[in-house]
């Protein structure tokens, strides 16, 4: 098995640049609600390079100082949607945020808002996944089974363009954590789910529009969006849930067919 050794601070000195300090303070929010442990911060001095990501900084802590820090991650390349957290107050993917772009010697990482905390930086995704499933995130049509005789469903580039952007969602939950409605309305579907409802409604292969419109047309559904737009500000994949919500509203208000 390959042994990965932590870089020694002395080896770092030759990469020092004038704008980038090579040691930062990483403050990690610690809590364990199920054990009744109150939130607190643990501070660590971490050597960083120009390309070090916040996730790498956290993993450095786990390797060298405190293995008990709870953090969820997998792909390390902004694809799996596991590592969402609040970084210096702003929801972002830890693996997609470089320490150097934060322009600060002190980096504070906290669990995402609007999610129940499991421990430290790991939050509970149950509600997000269940709301996502409620939107029926799949193509609905009678002949959806592809048989040896059937052909693929033809779609023009223009048809694809209508929903492509919204299909890039990785279910990281950053949009839900930034949404001011989510902060108080625990039953709100949320920008992630609503954007996915639009993604399938706008797909011309799909025949489930009426079903989905009925589901989002609820007292805690699409109408509880008040155009804050913070979901789209924080989305790391360019999904723009706020626009999806307004486009989806168009169907319910009769502007779109």
């Amino acid at each position, binding site marked *: 098995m390959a042994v990965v050794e932590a870089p020694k601070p002395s080896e770092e000195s030759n990469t020092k640049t004038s704008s980038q300090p090579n040691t930062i303070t990483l403050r990690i929010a610690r809590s364990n609600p199920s054990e009744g442990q109150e939130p607190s911060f643990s501070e660590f001095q971490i050597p960083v390079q120009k390309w070090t990501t916040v996730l790498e900084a956290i993993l450095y802590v786990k390797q060298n100082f405190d293995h008990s820090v709870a953090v969820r991650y997998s792909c390390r390349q902004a694809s799996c949607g596991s590592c969402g957290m609040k970084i210096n107050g702003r929801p972002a993917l830890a693996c997609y945020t470089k320490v150097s772009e934060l322009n600060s010697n002190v980096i504070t990482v906290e669990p995402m808002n609007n999610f129940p905390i499991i421990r430290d930086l790991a939050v509970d995704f149950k509600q997000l996944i269940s709301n996502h499933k409620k939107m029926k995130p799949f193509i609905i049509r009678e002949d959806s089974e592809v048989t040896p005789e059937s052909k693929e469903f033809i779609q023009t580039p223009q048809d694809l363009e209508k929903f492509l952007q919204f299909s890039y969602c990785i279910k990281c939950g950053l949009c839900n954590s930034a949404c001011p*409605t989510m902060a*108080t*309305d*625990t*039953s*709100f579907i949320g920008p992630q789910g609503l954007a996915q409802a639009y993604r399938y409604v706008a797909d011309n292969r799909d025949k489930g529009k009426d079903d989905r419109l009925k589901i989002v*047309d*609820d*007292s*805690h*559904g699409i*109408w*509880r969006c008040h155009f804050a737009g913070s979901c789209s500000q924080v989305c790391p994949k360019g999904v723009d849930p706020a626009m999806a919500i307004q486009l989806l509203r168009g169907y*319910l*208000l009769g502007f779109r067919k």
Partner: protein
Amino acid sequence: MRESIIMKIHYGTALGAVALVAVHILMRMSQKFSDSLQYQNVITNYHFLPYALMLEAILILLSVHGFNGLRVILLELKQGSTYEKMINYGSLAAMAILIAYGSRTILMAGMGVS
């Protein structure tokens, strides 16, 4: 009622109110503001049926819009089926009470009782 119908009413009452409140303000500007508050002027306004009907319409539009808006705020503040039922029926009752009380004023002034 489906939420989309409620929200269409919410947006509709807002637009209606913008139009009628504009007329209301323009009518007030036809004379000096202090004059427009003279007792005799106010009573004359209420006696002018189209204007009294317009005031009644503004009363209904803004009661419906305002209390539905408050309902939305309260639904987002706290959740729970009993609470939400109370809010839904409570805001309907509040609309009805405010419209009844305002209509009473318009009717009494219109019929010359004061």
